[in-house]
């Protein structure tokens, strides 16, 4: 079993414990030194003066809320954007990074958050894309395959074949390909933009092992993440960005208190805690009742019920079938057996229309591709599920829709508070709020939330949690899916532990902790 061998790997590693080098505070010894970099897009100032100093062999974490300028900073270092002002030095020399090629030549490789791989090409072809191993324009495939195998072995994924088409890989394995591509160059610095966002616990462990191997070899890692606990585990120093400015440079990752980091990121005091659960009334009616639901080859025999005001959480690893369960309840996938009942009404299989009609709302996992019309303004996105309400004789009444949207913006503290801003320009947290507002306006009885805080920073998370609680308190039956087990446990009244398309256990969330869930999942998969 993969999990067991991973444990062994890290134990071996501890024996060969890594000794920290003494790093002097000396700008001459820094690998990368960014000073006062600015960048504007049109009238929007994305970077207003960013400093970042990275030393060889360190893991340097960059923290910041969505919209703080992390992505712009990365793309500036990767040669995608050219800065308007400021200076970048590399190994003590001032440099201009004016193309992706220039960045790679310096020794800077970037793993982007959106998986930047080509589905139709094989693993080897993706890794050497743009710098193919070729002679006179003809590719040398066996050499590329050999080097790919070597890279994959180095990343602990020797079982992947270089010839596998990338389109058939899981998101986690695509990330491995992306990392192998970065390593296929002769690099001194690798930038990882939220690499753990698509990974589950085991895979994050493996990622960290790789990061440690890289830093052991003197390669610096700029690591971007929302998860503070990851910074504690892997980071050496932290730079914090807020509103396009650096608010702190080179904080020690292990010692800086969480409250301090959150204050630096948000400019205010925020506790990253889950809201109080109000006890669900024992006579609350069952709103959603799922019985024996099955989707051939994905999951089977899924039964649960949710009462009004109750939050039920599905905990499990990526690929366990949790998202598919939600999508099947919603009718986006056609169940092969079983039935879904909302109040007393049995829903026809595979009909989203019927599900929405019965009062079910879904906030999908891929917010950007499945949930939002990105280029449309906020008010259009909010009114999307209830267009009938805003139509008069077939013509849409935008004024009414804007009015409702404004109410929701106020209630949810959506920022920017402008109903005409395109959804694309909002941060992840605010985009999530749009989706919640959409269903609130539509009036739902059942809310299905798939990864409600993916890509949402710590500051906005607490707000989303509170909103989800409010929606439950208003009488909704809520089902939450998340890869972060802690989030499921903190948010839900009842937890269903899912593995390999089966529900292993149903129990009140206060009767189990994160380890307990993982234990169940591991045993379940092994069985």
């Amino acid at each position, binding site marked *: 079993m*993969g999990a067991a*061998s*991973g444990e*062994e*790997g890290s134990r*071996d*590693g501890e024996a*060969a*414990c*890594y*000794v*920290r080098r*003494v*790093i002097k*505070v000396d700008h001459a010894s820094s690998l990368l030194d960014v000073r006062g970099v600015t960048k504007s897009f049109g009238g929007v100032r994305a970077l207003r003066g960013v400093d970042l100093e990275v030393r060889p062999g360190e893991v340097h974490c960059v923290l910041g809320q969505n919209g703080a300028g992390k992505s712009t900073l990365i793309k500036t270092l990767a040669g995608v954007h050219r800065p308007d002002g400021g200076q970048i030095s590399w190994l003590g020399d001032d440099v201009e990074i004016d193309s*992706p*090629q220039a960045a*790679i030549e310096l020794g800077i490789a970037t793993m*982007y958050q959106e998986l*930047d*791989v*080509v*589905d*139709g*090409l094989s693993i080897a072809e993706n890794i050497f*894309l*743009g*710098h*193919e191993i*070729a002679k006179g*324009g*003809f*590719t040398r*495939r066996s050499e590329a395959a050999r080097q790919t195998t070597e890279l994959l*072995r180095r990343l*602990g*994924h*020797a*079982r992947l074949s270089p010839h596998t088409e990338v389109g*058939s890989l*899981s998101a986690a*394995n695509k990330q491995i390909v992306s990392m192998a591509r970065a390593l296929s160059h002769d690099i001194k610095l690798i930038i990882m933009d939220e690499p753990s966002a698509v990974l589950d616990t085991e895979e994050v*462990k*493996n990622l960290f*092992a*790789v990061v*440690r*191997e890289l830093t052991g070899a003197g390669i610096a890692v700029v690591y971007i993440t929302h998860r503070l606990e990851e910074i504690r*585990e892997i980071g050496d120093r932290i730079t914090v960005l807020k509103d396009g400015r650096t608010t702190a440079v*080179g904080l*020690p990752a*292990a010692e800086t208190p969480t409250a301090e980091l959150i204050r630096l990121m948000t400019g205010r005091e925020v506790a990253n805690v889950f809201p109080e659960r109000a006890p669900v009334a024992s006579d609350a009616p069952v709103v959603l009742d799922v019985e024996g639901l099955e*989707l*051939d*080859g994905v999951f089977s025999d899924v039964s649960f019920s949710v009462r009004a005001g109750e939050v039920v959480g599905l905990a499990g690893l990526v*690929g366990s079938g949790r998202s*598919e369960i939600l999508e099947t309840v919603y009718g986006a*996938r*056609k169940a092969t057996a079983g039935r879904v009942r909302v109040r007393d009404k049995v829903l026809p299989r*595979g009909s989203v229309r019927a599900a929405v009609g019965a009062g079910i709302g879904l906030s999908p996992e891929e917010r950007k591709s499945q949930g939002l019309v990105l280029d449309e303004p906020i008010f259009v996105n909010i009114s999307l599920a209830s267009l009938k309400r805003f139509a008069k004789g077939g013509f849409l009444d935008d004024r009414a829709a804007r009015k409702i949207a404004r109410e929701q913006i106020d209630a949810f503290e959506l920022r920017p508070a402008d109903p005409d801003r395109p959804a694309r320009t909002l941060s992840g947290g605010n985009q999530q709020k749009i989706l919640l507002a959409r269903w609130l306006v539509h009036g739902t009885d059942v809310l299905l939330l798939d990864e409600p805080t993916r890509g949402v920073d710590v500051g906005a998370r607490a707000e989303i949690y509170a909103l989800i609680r409010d929606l439950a308190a208003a009488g909704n039956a809520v089902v939450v899916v998340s890869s972060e087990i802690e989030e499921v446990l903190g948010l839900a009244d009842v937890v269903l532990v899912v593995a390999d398309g089966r529900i292993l256990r149903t129990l009140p969330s206060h009767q189990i902790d994160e380890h307990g869930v993982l234990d169940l999942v591991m045993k379940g998969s092994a069985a």
Partner: protein
Amino acid sequence: MSEPTTPTRARTVPTETGVTPAPEAVPAWRRLLSGSAGRNLGLVVALLLIVVIGAVTAQGSFTSLDNMLVILRQASIIGVIAIGMTFVIIAGGIDLSVGSVMGLASVVATLAAVQDLADSLHWSMMIVIALAVGVGAGLINGIVIAYGNVVAFMATLAMLVGARGLAEILAERRTLVVQDRGFITFMNGDILGVDILIWIFAIVAALGWVLLNRTTFGRRTVAVGGNREAARLAGINVKRHTMLLYALTGLCSGIAAVMILGRTTAGTSTHGTLVELDAIAAVVVGGTLLIGGRGTVTGTVFGVLIFATLSNVFVQNNLSSSVQAVAKGVIIVVAVLLQQRFSRPPGRG
């Protein structure tokens, strides 16, 4: 900067026993069918089916070696165009102008030959001119699309109309007869009993296969079509590559112009009318995705052969071209439906 005296956490060096998730459980037959080999297998079956129908309904006249060569000859010109089209479609583009560029090239090449040039220059100049016109028109397409950020559909639609008009002006709506005997003899000759036209198709297909599967150009074509942003971030000059792709379809149009000049011994602005649709149909039936990112030259060759064989079966059975057209339409829809069935990942409703 404070320096921790004891590491708060152990750094570990990974061993080779990293965590590898179990490969997705997909039945072998499904993996085979959804791979490119599987898609091509389906095409082979379809082609064989049509051949069997032809052999049964038209008997001797269909299965004769001569008739096989007729089919291949008819497939050859569309085939060359379709090979070029495969590349732009894999790259996520489309070229609607191939037919009229082919007509234009045929007119310009014949005009050059009937004028003074004919006496002083060898007939191979006609070929060079036709290819140059094709590449030139293709480059214009490519520049407008890549650097002018015009949607490929519109840019090449403009070229479709414009090139045809230009060909009419140059030819003054007449058919220009090729006088050069050397050219005609060469183009209508054969090697080892197989027509030159068929050889040209075979060579273009083989070169196309090598270009797509064994060169950096082909690799980058798939990347541009599959994930344009990833290609750009990998340091590929996407604009230049896009431009070159349209030059490539232009080149194929030029080659097709030479072929049709040889076969009909005349250049006219009506050469290549609606060829673009036949070519696109063959490419799509051959399994190349219209949205780009995936496709094969082998599949395109089969697509072309399927249509050519089908129309031959209809001719052998004395069925009208209208019936043929209906059958073609049905085949396109069925082929695309079948592909979706087999290439769909399991578990999706």
